[in-house]
């Protein structure tokens, strides 16, 4: 059987998926991207082969996506993460018609059709507001990790609104709230809410067609899902696989290409 590998080299994490020609996921893994994107991708490739026991020669194509896609030296083809997240979200939840992806350095909302093709998309402007990095910076300055921040925010009784859209200024603003005695639970809630509020602005621009699937690293945060569902008054698809949506989409493009090549002969 032939296999393809999808590697999503994101700004924070590099995710990889090994898929067989029947579109079944055989293995998946994730590692920190760090300063050397190609090394991170190489690590993922090795881990996927080890986990699955598949021979390297059986992997016919490697499809790169994410900001680092052109840096992966062993990548055969490159596809943007916009197309890949659309395809990956549709694979995980076939009724998906709208995708919200919040990764380390960008946020995107994608409208997809019944095949998982991109119909329309919008992204945040080039500042970090509304991205995973925005949340990460603030919670780090409080000496917290994502799990701590989630646990605290879920206990919030009255969320605090952060008005700054600049990541650095928002960090200062959060500290000021702490200084005047606001509860850290409420501040953490405000941090997540700030990002989700921006996401809803983008969703409105594209138009929300159900079902909505939430992908990217931030989708692993229960508080982010909860705020999104509360504000939109709708159920949101998410799972522990949604952070791999880009890599899954890349692998699906690979399978499609293999099929085309076989068909053409």
């Amino acid at each position: 059987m032939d296999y393809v590998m999808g590697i999503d080299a994101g700004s924070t994490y590099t995710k990889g998926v090994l898929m067989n020609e029947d579109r079944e996921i055989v293995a998946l893994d994730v590692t920190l991207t760090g300063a050397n994107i190609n090394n991170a991708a190489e690590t993922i490739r090795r881990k996927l082969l080890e986990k699955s026991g598949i021979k390297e020669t059986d992997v016919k194509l490697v499809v790169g996506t994410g900001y680092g896609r052109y840096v992966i030296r062993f990548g055969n083809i490159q596809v943007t993460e916009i197309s890949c997240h659309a395809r990956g979200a549709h694979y995980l939840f076939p009724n998906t018609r709208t995708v919200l992806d919040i990764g380390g350095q960008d946020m995107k909302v994608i409208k997809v059709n019944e095949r998982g093709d991109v119909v329309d998309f919008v992204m945040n402007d080039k500042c970090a507001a509304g991205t995973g990095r925005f949340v990460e910076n603030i919670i780090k300055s409080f000496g917290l990790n994502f799990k701590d921040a989630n646990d605290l925010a879920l206990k919030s009784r009255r969320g605090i609104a952060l008005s700054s859209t600049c990541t650095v200024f928002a960090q200062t603003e959060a500290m000021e709230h702490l200084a005047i005695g606001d509860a850290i639970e409420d501040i953490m809630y405000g941090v997540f809410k700030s990002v989700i509020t921006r996401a809803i602005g983008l969703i409105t621009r594209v138009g929300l067609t159900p079902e909505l699937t939430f992908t990217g690293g931030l989708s692993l945060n229960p508080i982010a899902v909860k705020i999104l569902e509360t504000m939109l008054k709708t159920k949101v698809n998410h799972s522990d696989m949604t952070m791999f949506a880009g890599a899954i989409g890349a692998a699906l493009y690979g399978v499609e290409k293999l099929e085309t090549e076989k068909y053409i002969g």
Partner: protein
Amino acid sequence: MMAGSTPMLPDFPKELDKGKAIQAQYIRRHFSEELQKAPELKAKGYKYAYLFVMGNPIELLRPFGVFIGVYPEITSLNISYKGEAIPVLDAAEGLVGFPTDVCGYVKMGVASTYMANKIKVTVPVIGHMPEPDLMVLHYTGCQVYIHWWELYQYMFNTPVLVYDIPHLRHLEDTAKPHKEDIEYVAEQLKDSVPFLEKISGVPFDESKFKETVKITAETWDYWRQVIEMEKLVPAPYDAYFEAIYYMSMITIYRGTKDALDYYKYLLDELKARYKFINEHPEYAERFRLIFEGVPPYHNYKSFWNLFKRWGARMVYATYPKVPGMELFRFDPSRPWESEAEYMILPYCNINYKDRAEILAKYVDEYKADGVVIHSIKSCKSFSSNHGDFKEYLSKELDVPVLLIESDHVDPRYYSEAQIKNRIDAYFEALSLRAKR
């Protein structure tokens, strides 16, 4: 289809690409002979008239024989195109005191003139910016532009000639000025003649004005034919990235024989190109697009390459129509009214509803696969309705639209990785759409 899976659109052979080189010679002439030599030309009695690109009444100034047009927008974009924007923006923000969010054209235009005349430092890529003898405020659709000329007035005590141009409201016919508006502007043009005679020291000769309008009418007709050639499949040139070079003649040298001869030549060159493309299909476009908005001049060629690598060619663009829409024809038999109509019709003076209709009409007429909108933070007049255009075209007409944002002259607002990502995703979606 993925980026790089098909070859980049090749450049045309040099003998079929002289149009850009010829206009470059004229641009050099404008900066090095007409502006750089300001002290000696002023001593000979020439007067520098600052004008906007949009809808200027140069036909009325040329008959006096002493006015040299200066276009600070073109100065600003050239500085940015040559990669020198940052020091000039620094001067605008540091020396002149502009906040960062003010229009880049205004900041750089003021800074380059201020530097040349007040602190005696010229910007090398454009040379000396002459002190204005006359400011013609003929485009009042942008409030910031009004204040731009006001600033020069404070700096140099220069007289400002103001024409009040009515906004082109949405009427029954798309982009058609109201009869009363035309009369209103034509009367202002006539009323301004004694003032121009006083500034120039030359009596007005109406026959020369009519003759100039006649030359422009003929030039305009060739320019219109150039634009309409893009209805051909394959398209003989890029109606955005190449037309921006071509438009400089209709902008700076309108009303001269040079401009007329240029467009006559260009039309022939493009006809030859069309024949060539049909014999060499590798030069034919794979995607036909319409472009709305001002380009990022600071990254002009690399931005263009982001489209070329997908085999895309723009077949219609609104920006090269900023000096005037091709729907309009100059009429030498009624020169005052014709000039007035031209002044009302710049693209940015047209209401949003008509602009959306113009885009929709041209998607159809130019057989386009989609629309690319580049929104810039500097220009609210151009960009503030871009979100609605996108929504109208994509949701109501099912036209694939890409909306990207940066700035036209300020490279600090441009992030190539982000822009490239959006462009690639757009073409991936267009490719799938074409396949299915």
